[in-house]
């Protein structure tokens, strides 16, 4: 039996959603628009349209160095946290072992700790060990806070796997190693890829933990934050907008591929 929809909900909800989207997207549109501003050093008020910033994104001092640092740090952090986190996720879902709840707590705590505490704790540790903060300490910090997010993401994927698939492989005389690499691992790949993307974006956009453990090394968010007081060059807007467009493209390609895979599966 279907009744007419609650009319208030029918019209109010979509309008509400549109307003929420405007709220979400306004600063992005602003950042994008002001990447075309011919503003010189202080990109505060609109001057006139120009392509120059996009033609020469490294035109402002230190912008591109900070981006290169951020990308390199994010790659290392993604690699480290994805490997360590995937291993933990596999163990949690597929194996019996003692101290399971202690392990879960150890994974939950970093997520429940505010960044400013994580950053301060690590810096206290590095100062104690007389380690100078810099590129390496940022990577160490990023791997640490990304691990838990990788575990959660991959674990959800492992939990949806049919355990009988591995058994079927064993019945067909596959060794456990072959069964894992030929059956389980390919099925896990989408989950691992999602975890890696999450780790990359968490690392690339991190500011607070980075700021505590970076010493003189500049990352892109740190560069933007530090230059906020004296005016952010329009090139920073170009980098931000370009990252946005690249990520959007990656997500759209992913969605198209997923849709194709679904269609192919249905056709079979």
């Amino acid at each position: 039996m279907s009744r007419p929809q609650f009319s208030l909900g029918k019209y109010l909800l979509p309008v509400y959603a549109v307003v929420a989207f405007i709220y979400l997207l306004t600063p992005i549109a602003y950042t994008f628009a002001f990447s075309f501003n011919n503003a010189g050093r202080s990109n505060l008020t609109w001057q006139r349209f120009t392509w120059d910033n996009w033609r020469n994104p490294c035109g402002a001092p230190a912008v591109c160095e900070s981006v290169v640092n951020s990308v390199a740090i994010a790659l290392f952090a993604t690699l480290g946290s994805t490997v360590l986190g995937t291993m933990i996720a596999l163990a949690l879902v597929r194996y019996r072992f003692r101290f399971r709840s202690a392990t879960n707590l150890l994974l939950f705590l970093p997520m429940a700790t505010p960044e400013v505490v994580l950053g301060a704790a690590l810096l206290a540790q590095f100062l104690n060990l007389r380690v100078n903060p810099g590129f390496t300490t940022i990577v160490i910090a990023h791997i640490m806070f990304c691990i838990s997010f990788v575990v959660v993401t991959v674990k959800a994927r492992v939990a949806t796997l049919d355990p009988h698939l591995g058994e079927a492989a064993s019945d067909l005389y596959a060794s456990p190693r072959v069964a894992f690499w030929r059956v389980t691992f390919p099925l896990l790949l989408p989950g691992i890829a999602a975890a890696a993307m999450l780790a990359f974006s968490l690392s690339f956009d991190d500011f607070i933990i980075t700021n505590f453990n970076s010493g003189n090394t500049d990352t892109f968010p740190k560069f933007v934050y530090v230059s906020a007081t004296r005016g952010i060059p329009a090139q920073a807007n170009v980098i931000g907008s370009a990252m946005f467009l690249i990520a959007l493209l990656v997500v759209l390609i992913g969605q198209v591929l997923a849709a194709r895979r679904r269609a192919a599966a249905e056709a079979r």
Partner: protein
Amino acid sequence: MTAALTSATAEAGAPPPPPRGSSRIAWLLLTPGLAYLVLFFVAPVAVLLLTSLYERVPDGPVGATRPALRWENYTDALVTYAPQFGRSFLYAFIATVLALAIGYPLAYVIAVRCRNRPLLQGLLLVLVIAPFFTSFILRTIAWKQILADESLVVAVLKTISLLPDDARLTATPTAVVAGLTYNFLPFMTLPIYANLERLDLRLIEAGEDLYANPAETFRRVTLPLSMPGIVAGSLLTFIPAAGDYVNSALLGTASTAMIGNVIDSRFFRVVDYPTAAALSVLLMAAILLLVAAYVRRSGTDDLL
């Protein structure tokens, strides 16, 4: 990204398959990651605890401390920075409630209303995660400029008398709370979306068939079922918001300083490590207590 945040709640629903296999392999898989967390999470927190009890060397070099058991660090920090503590939790609480009020209907529209239109659903979902793709510092600074005294938005609001002539939007508590709400809105929306996406619409029909009005069906059926999503979203919003200092630093003034601002300036400007450490420990303890109480109260223990 979506998959990641959505899966954070997905597992609360499905019972895990029985674990099997030998524990030797389990430990081989676990050891590297857990050792890493012990080295770079547990040990630093332990160092932080120790540092929080150290005393400063009065005539020594900048930042010099010596080992001690100075519990007064905690009482001094609490007394001196009680307003900033209160502000942090108040702002984070308001931001969480606002994010829920905005994020829940948004998630509902995407997950339930758009269920039969996968293309639109996919597009809207991308728009929700879109903010993640631009640096959050850049977006916060964009807000600062959008709300600035000389900006177009403010001028328009003043012209149509929605805003008094002498009013300002930046450098106010409102701006800080709005910034916090904005920055963590996707973290609220995505877990709720992940939950509502799996909501069985037949349950709502059943509610209607039993002559419950839509409001009551929502209150008695939809809302309780989406509780795990709400809990996960609130935690993902409240925890980072309470420790944040970027929004207050960029959108506020000294009178909107949150505890994160104090920890930051104690560490880097005043170079007073014991006080910074004591404040960090207090913040962590307070948040963990709140989280534990909240998770227990909302009956989603299995989230942990």
